[in-house]
């Protein structure tokens, strides 16, 4: 039987010789000749060119040799500064409301109804508290950060970032459009991994996938913001606190970008050898964003969706946390056993057992790290009034409660800095891991994408902790 497909390919090869190699050129030229002709007939340009071309002036500035990079850093800092300043008050208001007012009311209601202690524990001290923490820690910063980021995106700034960074990517043997998937990763790594589809070379696409995790995603911003506000912002005069905390967050983000370059460079010289392939990037015209529409859609579409995901992850996590904190084996709760099991390794990394346990509980979503850490600290450090396992000892005064909890948990500046680093450098969340598998269909590369940042995170935090201890800083 003759195979029509093979037959077809053979005929094509034979005829190709007849047509010659210039076919594509001929078509492309003909198309553009026509296009130019048609456009010329249809479009009338203004007679005099405007003396001042605003788009060009902006482009000259944001890609200039002197100002290009400072402006990127400055914009990022301003975005976080606004986020941190703006989120502070609403966050503590929400915490006061949900944790200080609603939670005790619910507890009272439950005991009035005669609900058994374990049920009200699992539901109110576990599920409800975890959800409430997520809402108060995440909602305000997200509701400010997303709209700001979307405005920058709609204006057309992101491709300029890619343009400015391209040389570094090409040095690292990576694709210029990796800058775009990286910026998408600042929203969500799973989205960033999907966004690598714009890269047409498989090698470079894999590099982009494997390194996307170094773009700090929205689940991790709240951790960074909170920790830097409490431990770094508070170390400087109040007037500078917001700015310094923002600078600390930006430093972590910039470190993530530097790691992206370093790891891409490493990959393209070891596991994924090859040359950077060609790339072209269109820089779109600046378009004034529609402010209100952007605010509306980014709050509705992004913030609430992300928040909802976080809450659905937090609720079961809360149940788990409460359960392991209240099931006792040999006089100590399961959580305490686990924490003391992990404490040694945690100490080596300049972290502690609670943080490591939190990172295990929070594999489904980075968003719930902070609530998990807080709840575990409260539940295992036997803080005042924790008998029935709640976090109800909060005298909430603009985040001081969180600080008190963490100090009670034995946190130092080293713990805070290493938590920020570990937050940047650890395994991707389970959603991202699944997406990586879906995009690569390769267990091997999925495993690499998971293990590589985790091991790197161990190495970095261990090195820093050891150095700090040897130098007597901690």
């Amino acid at each position: 039987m003759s195979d029509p497909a093979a037959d077809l390919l053979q005929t094509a090869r034979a005829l190709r010789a007849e047509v010659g190699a210039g076919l594509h050129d001929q078509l492309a030229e003909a198309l553009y000749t026509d296009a130019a002709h048609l456009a010329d007939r249809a479009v009338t340009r203004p007679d005099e060119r405007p003396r001042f071309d605003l788009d060009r002036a902006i482009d000259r500035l944001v890609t200039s040799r002197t100002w290009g990079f400072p402006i990127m850093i400055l914009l990022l800092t301003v975005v976080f500064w606004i986020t941190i300043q703006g989120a502070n008050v609403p966050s503590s208001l929400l915490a006061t409301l949900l944790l200080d007012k609603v939670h005790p009311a619910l507890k009272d209601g439950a005991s009035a109804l005669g609900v058994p202690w374990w049920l009200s524990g699992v539901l109110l001290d576990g599920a409800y508290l975890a959800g409430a923490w997520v809402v108060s820690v995440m909602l305000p910063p997200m509701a400010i950060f997303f709209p700001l980021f979307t405005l920058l995106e709609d204006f057309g700034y992101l491709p300029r970032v890619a343009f400015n960074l391209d040389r570094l990517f090409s040095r690292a043997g990576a694709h210029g459009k990796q800058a775009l998937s990286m910026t998408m990763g600042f929203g969500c790594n799973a989205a960033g991994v999907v966004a690598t589809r714009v890269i047409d070379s498989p090698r470079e696409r894999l590099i982009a996938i494997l390194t996307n995790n170094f773009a700090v995603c929205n689940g991790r911003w709240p951790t960074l913001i909170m920790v830097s506000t409490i431990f770094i912002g508070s170390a400087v005069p109040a007037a500078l606190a917001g700015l310094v905390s923002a600078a600390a967050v930006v430093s972590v983000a910039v470190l993530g970008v530097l790691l992206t370059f370093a790891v891409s460079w490493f990959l393209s010289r070891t596991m994924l050898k090859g040359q950077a392939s060609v790339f072209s990037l269109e820089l779109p015209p600046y378009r004034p964003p529609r402010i209100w529409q952007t605010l509306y859609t980014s709050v509705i579409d992004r913030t609430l969706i992300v928040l909802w995901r976080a809450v659905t992850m937090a609720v079961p996590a809360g149940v788990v946390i409460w359960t392991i904190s209240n099931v006792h084996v040999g006089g100590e709760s399961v959580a305490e056993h686990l924490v003391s099991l992990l404490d040694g390794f945690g100490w080596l990394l300049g972290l502690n057992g609670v943080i490591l346990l939190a990172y295990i509980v929070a594999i489904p979503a980075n968003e719930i790290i902070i609530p998990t850490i807080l709840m575990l600290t409260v539940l295992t450090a036997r803080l005042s009034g924790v008998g029935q396992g709640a976090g109800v000892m909060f005298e909430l005064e603009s985040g001081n409660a969180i600080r008190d909890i963490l100090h009670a948990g034995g946190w130092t500046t080293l713990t805070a800095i290493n938590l920020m680093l570990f937050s940047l450098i650890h395994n991707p969340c389970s959603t991202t891991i699944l997406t990586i598998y879906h995009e690569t269909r390769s267990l091997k590369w999925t495993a690499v994408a998971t293990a590589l940042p985790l091991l790197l995170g161990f190495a970095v935090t261990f090195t820093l902790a050891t150095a700090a201890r040897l130098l007597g800083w901690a």
Partner: protein
Amino acid sequence: MSLNPDPGHEQPAQRTLADLQPGETAEVVALHSDGAERRRLMDLGIVPGTRIIAELRSPLRDPVAYRVRGALIALRQSQAVQIEIRSPAPEMLS
């Protein structure tokens, strides 16, 4: 080599797009790349006869953004050297 050659001046043969300084205009003579890369460039409208203006240099000098048929397109220098150019015909300058 002078930094800002007079755009109307005769250039030596085999100038490539990489030689074009920001602000200068040129006309594409030929593409010396092939395969997918050549296709992609042509899809973007870079075909013989196309008029190109170098517009922006990135802070690290590479890539450079070129104005091609109304759009601003960034190309790495490794690609730009594959695109042969000449000074535009006088009537194109008007």
